[in-house]
């Protein structure tokens, strides 16, 4: 098994209200020199060693990140790997939904 570590952040220019709120909190504690704060999300996947990289890309674009407002990268990478937002093609959540019995909540 391999571990895939993914970091999702808001795109440049998209309002990061959480980051702003954290910056306010840091200021209140006296850390006024902190110039900017961005809050993102960390997701860790355990997959087979042979798991296709294009499938990682696909599941990131379809669920882990919303390409309209977010970008994602693998931990350690300096450049975002996410594609630019695409408004064509099938809806992100279409198909591949788990079968009802897989939900276990009903």
């Amino acid at each position, binding site marked *: 098994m391999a571990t895939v570590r993914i970091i999702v952040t808001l795109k440049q220019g*998209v309002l990061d209200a959480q980051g*702003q709120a954290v910056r306010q909190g840091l200021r209140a504690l006296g850390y006024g020199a902190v110039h900017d704060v961005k809050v993102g999300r960390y997701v860790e996947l355990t997959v087979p060693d042979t798991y296709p990289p294009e499938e990682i890309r696909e599941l990131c674009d379809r669920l882990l990140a919303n390409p309209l407002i977010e970008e994602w990268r693998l931990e350690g990478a300096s450049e975002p790997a996410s594609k630019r*937002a695409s408004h064509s093609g099938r*809806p992100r959540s279409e198909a591949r*939904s788990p079968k009802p019995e897989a939900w276990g*909540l009903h």
Partner: protein
Amino acid sequence: MRFGVVIFPGSNCDRDCIHVLGSVLRQDVVELWHGKATVDGVDCVVLPGGFAYGDYLRAGAIAATAPVINAVREFATSGGAVIGICNGFQILLEAGLLPGAMLRNDVLQFRCRDVRMRVESTRTPFTSGLRVGQVLRMPIAHGEGNFYAPAPMLDAMEQAGQIVFRYCDAAGAVAAEANPNGAARSIAGISNQQGNVLGLMPHPERASEAILGSTHGRLLFQSAIGWIEGRRSSVVAVR
């Protein structure tokens, strides 16, 4: 008329919707469970507010992958009337049934209060009985209602008549002060291109009885009832 109210784990406005549709407006209402891929032959689907799946990942993101959403998508594609209220709106965005995305409120606060919104389009089933420029008052209650879409997308939506409601003041003027969450172009509600799917942040089901301070919300559901009746009779006429 038969309404279906979708229930996800974490929905919390489902009872309010069922109460208004069933007890106030005397319509048939069925509950649609998120785990079943069917809308059960209803005339109209309601996605209620709440925190489906705890809003994990992003508001509406997990709910958008639920089996019932595939059935809602089919229903919407066939022209059926769908309304997503608050969290229901967020789910429709994440499911790709409506364009755009939702950000956290720019005020960095959860906002729970009455707002006014102006009707911008009467092409949706839920605004078909209203008039453009009409001002409605109903409550909002959300932390992520800051509607976002890139400017070209917003322009395309405006041209296609997909902006349905904008936050406004008592006189109907759209002003920054009347925008409770920073939503792009003061957008409170939008539709898909066909106009049969509506998403809005304010809660019509919380403004459907005089004792609650406003009955404007009822107008949306009554419009849908009229729209569905009209659609039925036109189908009969064609036959």
